[in-house]
């Protein structure tokens, strides 16, 4: 087994398809989605990175291709150092990434969360259900096109919804977000509500 600090240096030799990724702190690498599990397995078994600290995804926005990036943060409990790996999902419409839950059972919940928030599939995952939102929720909230206020949805309990007629309603952020874009004319960059046509007291006008 190699020491974790050496493993980061050895990785590009061992897997020539691995490329360095810009990073402000820990060694970071881009890996092709197809090789993700092989690289992770080598790092776990040979590199000493035995703890999966974090697994998450980044949505680059609809304009970017490839749009979704899955990011793993590995930690070594013996060498006490981190390593960041990132892999782009090949398909923007139906993003998918091989599961790491066979290597670390702890990846199970992380991948469920990524699926829940971004809609990224993990083929091979033993139980890919939503984890934070309820089963049957129709949206993926951390995608960039999902509005901060939320969207109209059916209540999770069908019987309650039928009896009360209630729905899950968007929560207006009192007109927020209150962050001005840095560029543009003064009128555009003034701190202001992006959509002032509706508040908690006033219904959102129909888009029709």
């Amino acid at each position: 087994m190699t020491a974790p600090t050496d493993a980061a240096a050895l990785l590009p030799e061992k897997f020539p398809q691995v490329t360095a990724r810009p990073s402000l702190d820990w060694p970071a690498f881009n890996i092709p989605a197809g090789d993700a599990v092989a690289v992770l397995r080598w790092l776990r078994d040979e590199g000493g990175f035995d703890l999966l600290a974090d697994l998450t995804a980044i949505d680059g926005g609809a304009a970017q291709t490839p749009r979704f990036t899955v990011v793993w943060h590995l930690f070594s409990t013996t060498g006490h150092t981190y390593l960041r790996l990132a892999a782009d999902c090949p398909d923007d419409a139906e993003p998918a990434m091989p599961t790491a839950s066979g290597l670390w059972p702890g990846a199970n919940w992380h991948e469920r969360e990524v699926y829940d928030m971004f809609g990224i599939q993990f083929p091979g995952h033993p139980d890919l259900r939503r984890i934070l939102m309820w089963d049957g929720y129709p949206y993926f909230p951390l995608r960039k096109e999902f509005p901060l206020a939320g969207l109209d949805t059916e209540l999770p309990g069908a019987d309650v919804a039928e009896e009360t007629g209630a729905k899950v309603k968007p929560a207006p952020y009192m007109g927020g977000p209150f962050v001005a874009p840095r560029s543009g004319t003064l009128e555009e960059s003034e701190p202001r509500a992006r959509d002032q046509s509706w508040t908690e007291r006033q219904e959102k006008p129909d888009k029709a």
Partner: protein
Amino acid sequence: MATDYTFPENAAKAAAAAQELQPERMSLNMGPSHPSTHGVLRLQLELDGEVVTRADPVVGYLHRGDEKIAENMTYNQFVPYTDRLDYLAPLANNVAYAIAVERLAKLEVPPRCQAIRVIIAELARISSHLMGLGAFGIDVGAWTVFLYTFTEREKLYKLFEELTGARFTTSYTRIGGLARDVPEGWTGRVNAFCDQFLPILEETLALLTRNKIFLDRTAGIGVIAKEDAIAYGLTGPNLRGCGVPLDLRKDRPYGGYEQYEFDVPVGATGDCYDRYLCRGEEMRQSVRIVKQAIARFPGGDWFAPDARRIFAPPKDKILTSMEELIQNFMLVSEGPQMPPGEVYFEAENPKGALGFFVVSRGGGVPWRLKIRSPSFCNLSILPKVCVGAMVADIVSILGSFDFVMGECDR
């Protein structure tokens, strides 16, 4: 060498296949509002008599979309949201978040700021562990402990209130510094608290440590093997209770922790009792750190001098000087301008390693902010630990895990 893991779900499926030969299983729903599930954790249990054959935790009842909110506000605006992650140790969350963003901005805070942050993070650890111990005691029927620990926690909250203006939602750190300096005489009062706290802590722990009922309820219950703890990503006292001496304050020192002497307690068997012992010892060590930090409390600035583009100027300057007024206006409207890049920082919080993964594309708003919450990772091992335990053991196991759903669900 490490092996590939099979899932407890698979074991449960195999058990389900053999069900024809078994008596009927009962399903039991525990939570989301159950006194021993500490908030809104829900467990779907499948029981064979009184033995748990399958446990499926349902989380997310406290999901508020903190990560989505973070993408829509400036870095300093998010500080109050970090209070509400692990709401039993808000100061520690504030510190962890501030250090993460400072690594992005490449800011070094002066020694006085570091010392204050160490003191408040350790006081937060004591207050969180006090709450955890008290609630654990109640879970297994030892009511008295809670009265002791709550009294001590109240004294800490008085100190927090004096320091930050709030008992619970402290929002004390800023990117590159703190909201304000410590009040006159505050460190002396913290020192006095530490002095009177140690004998009371011994008295409190003595109620449990050799208590026959407590030992019967916790020793040998909920045993986690070292390898499993690492494979599931457990951190904090729950990992150390299994015998893994991993403490980021020691192994990856941040914020000046390398200057202080303290020991890292580890457990031997990884059961509920070991996790309790670890927390008890950690409080003694935290007192040690706080006393060292106060003994050599540095003077000087409590914010980074080169945080000009991030930190609001002094109020009197804003009202009298044009340049500071403009700077304040830009900070409020656009947020502090950060360089593009990716940073991942984990702090050793009372519950475990709290991580922030900040992805910046420049500008005043993070492109993505992922919160790696220790409670979420710690709870993911429940389907494995609970199988084979009695229903009453589940209460012990949950109590010994000391999780917070505000952090788990985010």
